[in-house]
């Protein structure tokens, strides 16, 4: 169930907890301290907070300059602008110059619902993923977001994190466990196929797994929170051991999680991959759940696709014994 705590708030609370001990930890906002839920940080640590105004190129450049001077800046800005408007600064000032800047794209995907394509962020993973050296992470629930934040404070290097706007249903039962950058989490074991998801679609994948279990299908669920560097071994294992893969993402079908998985699969262990995401069109307006349903990012649709793939010889030209 949803816990009323959006991931952006979790990041703020976690950074608040760490900032007293680490005076180099800084947060930057682009008139977004409210939307990024960073107002408490701004009040508590004004010397560790920088307001840049509505200037996404500037926020990344300033963060790079701060990082160059030993600070640990966290840029918090709407994902749609941060990932697009300042992508050259991310490429040159963060990735190429190897500065320790954490970029948090807030209200990503279709979080901004009815505000339309200008405010949807459905290309950010594709763009960020193409930049050498940049780590790309989509955390799922509040537990994982807290663990990720702690891990990233310890991690040196440029990272793009994308989170949504709304409270997220839990996918983890408790607050235990370690967040390892670049290592997928096997949420459910399974042998007939693998569903790979990231961010808020992990919940959808888990719900689909339940439905499939009722239908007698054993689905593995991988939470691929780090899109780059991708956990290639987990993907290869999934392909070899389950023979079919469905990816689910709140992103364009071009260049995101599904594409990243497919790149590995076709080169190392070809099996059918079905990529579920937002098609190549300006996404329809509506609440996240409505948009997800419209585009088939639902447990019911995943179940149908899985059963069809499993039943169709054409959709499954290779068997597990091929490997």
């Amino acid at each position, binding site marked *: 169930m949803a816990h009323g705590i959006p991931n952006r708030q979790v990041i703020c609370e976690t950074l608040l907890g760490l900032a007293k001990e680490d005076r180099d930890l800084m947060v930057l906002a682009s008139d977004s301290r409210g939307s990024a839920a960073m107002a408490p940080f701004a009040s508590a640590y004004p010397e560790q907070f920088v307001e840049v*105004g509505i*200037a996404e190129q500037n926020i990344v450049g300033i963060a790079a300059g*701060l*990082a160059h001077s030993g600070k640990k800046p966290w840029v918090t800005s709407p994902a749609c602008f941060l990932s697009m408007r300042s992508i050259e600064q991310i490429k040159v000032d963060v990735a190429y110059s190897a*500065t320790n800047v954490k970029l948090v794209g807030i209200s990503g995907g279709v979080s901004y619902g009815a505000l339309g394509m200008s405010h949807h962020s459905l290309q950010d993973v594709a763009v960020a993923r193409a930049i050498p050296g940049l780590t790309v992470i989509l955390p799922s629930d509040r537990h994982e977001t807290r663990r990720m934040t702690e891990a990233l404070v310890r991690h040196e290097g440029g990272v793009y994190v994308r989170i949504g706007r709304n409270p997220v249903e839990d996918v983890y039962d408790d607050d235990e466990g370690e967040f390892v950058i670049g290592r997928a989490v096997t949420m459910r074991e399974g042998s007939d196929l693998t569903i790979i998801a990231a961010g808020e679609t992990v919940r959808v994948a888990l719900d689909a797994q339940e439905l499939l279990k009722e239908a007698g299908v054993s689905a593995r669920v991988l939470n691929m929170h780090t899109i780059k560097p991708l956990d290639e071994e987990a993907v290869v294992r999934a392909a070899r051991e389950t023979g079919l893969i469905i990816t689910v993402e709140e992103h364009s079908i071009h260049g995101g999680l599904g594409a990243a998985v497919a790149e590995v699969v076709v080169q190392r262990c070809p099996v059918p991959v079905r990529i579920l995401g937002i098609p190549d069109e300006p996404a329809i307006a509506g609440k996240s759940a409505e948009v997800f349903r419209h585009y088939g990012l639902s447990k019911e649709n995943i179940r149908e696709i899985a059963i069809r793939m499993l039943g169709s010889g054409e959709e499954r030209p290779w068997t597990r014994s091929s490997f």
Partner: protein
Amino acid sequence: METGALKRKAAQIRMDLLRMIHRAGTGHTGGSLSNTDILTSLYYRVMKIDPANPKWAERDRFIASKGHAVESLWCILADRGFFPKEELETFSRFGTRLIGHPNNKVPGIEMNTGALGHGLAISVGMALAAKRDGRSSRVFCLMGDGEQAEGSVWEAAMAGAHYRLDNLVGIIDRNRLQISGPTEDVMGLDPLDDKWSAFGWHVVPVDGNDVDALVNVFEAAPEVSGKPTLVLAHTVKGKGVSFAEHVPKWHHHVPNDKELALALSELSAELGSLEQIKGGQA
């Protein structure tokens, strides 16, 4: 270094960079010649740096936002001992560190630049960090005049004034030419001084090819407490080589053998006359 020696050094750097560009067959000649006096003033006189310890925390920082005119910087960093002078031979060759833009794999280079409109925001971050850490470091950011058309320059200008960064010095190499021709034909910039003043900067116009004037301005900054300084350095593109001065094609024209010989003879003559002044003074 006293200013007579700075002038001789600038002439020597110009000769070095022309030889380097000629050897490589590529380079941004005009803009490097125009900014040589600015860089010479900073690296041999004004900036607090230690070539033996390039990451010294208390150092002043220099960001070449107009990263394409890096040739003068390579020659100066080598001459100051940040890396061996022989490495200049590798400029623009396959696999070199000395590429056509600042590259922070080379000691003495703070950040990778080259995409225009980035340097000032980075410099704002550095100056802000120095303020918050109570360090006395100053940050010098050299921009091109054509670069002023990038909107991100003005985002950073706003932030520099907003945070009252009087440890920040922006410098515009105002040579009035960009790749397509005169700046005022490509995208009008004047009055640049008023624009920067309106953005809350203390603006100081200066002859950007006069090292005496440059040193005075850099050493005096900040003249106004609580404000960043913008040095509007009026320069000549192609400065020091008669046939390259004010000529747009020299933006990245490479001298042929004859042009190189002529340019070197002009600069040698200049160096000679500067030596004579030195002799006369002595």
